[in-house]
């Protein structure tokens, strides 16, 4: 009992650090550990993952808000898309074949991973030739953040707001229907489509995924999918890990974060493509 609890706290700690740095929910770490290593039913693994997403989000957001890394307006604006997408996803379950969603979103992540890899090779982190976007100006989305590595305030502009909004709508749909990819799509939409720098993208993704997860969490909570003896030690570890991760992220060069991000996002994308092709649900 104590050994299992300590193990879960340790897994949570690691997932929290990684999740806070990359802006992902940590399901890619937690689900395999719970199902493959501990032999837990997938239903309970998903329940624990939902709690993990919220713990990562709330734990890291405290520091990201204080240090003004994240973009609150972008988060609020795009949350309209993710929450509507989430509802649509819940309603379409059983009507729409998830196979096509796996294929579509798997391809999107692979495309995004390839795009990020190209960005890495060009070696240019901050995109300075972003075209002024009327919608972004109207919605006051352009902002700045203090980069602790470069030791300077970095101003950035947000581009292609409608495309970002559409990807978020899809992201909400996918996570509502498939229960995955809560963070990967959000970082993709902001970094790849809206041309936001990686650090604010990751921090803003962290903030947003908590709200998306909270909507479905109550369902899992009341139908008994969230086992307290599994989810609580995991959540406690994640909270500590996310607080640490949100500090580590700020002192890591954006390039390093991208180097970790690219294989992770490719892995998630390929996994989804595999599920789409094999028809595994």
């Amino acid at each position, binding site marked *: 009992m104590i050994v299992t609890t300590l193990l879960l706290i340790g897994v949570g700690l690691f997932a929290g650090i990684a999740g806070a740095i990359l802006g992902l929910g940590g399901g890619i770490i937690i689900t395999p550990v719970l199902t493959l290593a501990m032999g837990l039913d997938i239903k309970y693994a998903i329940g624990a993952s939902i709690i993990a997403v919220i713990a990562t989000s709330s734990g890291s957001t405290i520091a990201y808000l204080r240090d003004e890394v994240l973009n*609150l307006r972008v988060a609020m604006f795009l949350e*309209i898309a993710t929450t509507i997408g989430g509802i649509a996803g819940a309603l379409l379950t059983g009507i729409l074949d998830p196979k096509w969603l796996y294929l579509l979103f798997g391809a999107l992540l692979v495309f995004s991973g390839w795009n990020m890899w190209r960005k890495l090779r060009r070696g240019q982190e901050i995109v300075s030739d972003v075209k002024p976007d009327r919608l972004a100006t109207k919605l*006051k989305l352009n902002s700045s953040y203090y980069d602790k590595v470069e030791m300077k305030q970095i101003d950035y502009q947000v581009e292609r707001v409608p495309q970002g909004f559409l990807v978020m709508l899809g992201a909400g749909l996918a996570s509502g229907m498939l229960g995955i990819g809560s963070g990967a799509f959000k970082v993709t939409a902001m970094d790849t489509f809206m041309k936001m720098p990686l650090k604010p993208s990751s921090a803003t993704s962290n903030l947003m995924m908590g709200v998306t*997860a909270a909507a479905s969490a109550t369902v899992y909570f009341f139908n008994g999918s969230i086992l307290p003896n599994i989810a609580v030690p995991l*959540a406690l570890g994640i909270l500590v890990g996310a607080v640490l991760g949100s500090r580590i992220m700020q002192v890591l060069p954006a390039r390093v974060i991208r180097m970790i991000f690219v294989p992770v996002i490719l892995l998630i994308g390929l996994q989804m493509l595999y599920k789409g092709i094999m028809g595994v649900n």
Partner: protein
Amino acid sequence: MANKPESTEKEMAHIEIMIGRILQIGVVIAAIVMLIGLILLLVNGGDGGYAVGHQPTTISTILSGTAHMKPYAIMMVGMFCLILTPVLRVVVSIYAFYKEHDHLYVWITTAVLIILCVSFIIGHTV
């Protein structure tokens, strides 16, 4: 290339600090309650206070279990507090944007809260 008014930046700092503080309080409360439940569970030798494979899942059983200091019930309360923290953040954001007279974002954030409430309702009826 930055052409945003100074006020927007100061305003954002205020809003972010306000939301951050309240979020922190929520997270700390959730963590303490979960930790108390977990410690009780370990002290009880892994006995959550319910039959094996069972846990309280209705509000009334969770509350009555908490009154009897049952570990699983307290852990469920802690997790429920954690689930509420993102919702709390949205609610506080509406107030913060309102105080800073950013009406556009009062509407946007209110819309998010309404959609969130709709999804809660749909989630419980589907």
